[in-house]
């Protein structure tokens, strides 16, 4: 009987995993992760004791679209870290599919650009799957709750103009953080952008 219930539980888990494949929606709790940073140290959300929230950015080396946003992600960290919302960048791509996104190349890029935020590798791709990230760049703004858990407040693009940072009309992520800090609702809390598909492992 015990075996059957265990099997049942396992099946339920599998089903649950299948149904939640769509990833996080605004309002969902975001689970913590522990991933390797370019300095070889592990980074978890729980490490950010004093943060009011975290800006999780799925990005990568190779994607020309992500490249257009490189300096804007750096600016975002400089500006928002002071307000309690640091950037945590995660590369979800499989280096076997896209060699430019190898850990060594991530280290090189972070060093060359002088990244002021962690640049983590999601080797199992489980974090990207859990979040429901599909492309790079893909941003999740998380707000820390009183019980130190994190809630998703915004999902989408960094701003409304990938081509030209100077022609941006709406800075979605900045606005989201400012609204959270002001205790106002985040609008829009979900946006879309063109991007490179995540390079999933070939099964």
């Amino acid at each position: 009987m015990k075996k059957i219930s265990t099997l049942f539980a396992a099946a339920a888990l599998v089903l649950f995993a299948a149904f939640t494949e769509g990833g996080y929606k605004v309002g969902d709790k975001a689970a913590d992760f522990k991933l390797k940073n370019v300095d070889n140290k592990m980074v978890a959300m729980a490490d950010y004791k004093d943060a009011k929230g975290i800006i999780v950015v799925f990005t990568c080396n190779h994607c020309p679209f992500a490249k257009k946003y490189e300096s804007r992600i750096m600016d975002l960290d400089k500006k928002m870290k002071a307000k309690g919302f640091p950037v945590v960048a995660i590369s979800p791509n499989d280096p076997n599919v896209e060699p430019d996104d190898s850990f060594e190349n991530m280290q090189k890029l972070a060093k060359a650009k002088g990244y002021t935020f962690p640049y983590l590798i999601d080797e199992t791709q489980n974090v990207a799957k859990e979040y429901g990230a599909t492309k790079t760049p893909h941003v999740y703004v998380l707000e820390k709750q009183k019980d130190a858990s994190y809630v998703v407040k915004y999902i989408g693009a960094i701003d409304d103009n990938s081509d030209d940072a100077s022609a941006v009309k709406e800075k979605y992520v900045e606005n989201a953080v400012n609204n959270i800090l002001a205790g106002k609702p985040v609008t829009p809390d979900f946006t879309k952008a063109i991007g490179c598909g995540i390079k999933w492992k070939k099964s």
Partner: protein
Amino acid sequence: MKVVFKITVVAFLFAFVCIGKKVDVVTFGQLQEQAALKNNDTLYVVNFWATWCGPCVKEMPFFEESSKIFANQKVKIMFVCLNSVKEVAGVERFVKAKKIQNEVFLLNETNPNNWIDRVDGTWSGLIPATVMYKGGEEVFFKEGDFTQVQLDETITNMNKTIINNIDQK
């Protein structure tokens, strides 16, 4: 022998000039008029790509091949490039170099939030992405790339299903 060589060179140059169509810069509204709003029995296959997108560039020859395979059927394939409008010259060079025969449009829109959902609500924005229309209605959408077999099967199926629907009316 020399003459043959000269003719070959001239023919080659001529072919090079003719092959590779001009890239039309369009707004999203203008693009819709090219495919989504066409109320006829042609299947419109619209592929979103960019020169910087590896998987897109890789699958473009499949679409070119499909347009040959379905040449005698009412199937129209078109490419919609999502490079920046500023890069139109580069896109034209690319289209020419790859000898692309299907029509190529360059989308003149800056904010994807104004049009991504109007293509398909489930589109996250990653490319490549392909949408198909028939009779003024969306019949298929997929984000991600195709193999040649998948693409040909999809075109065959989408073409069939809707013809049946029209017949029933």
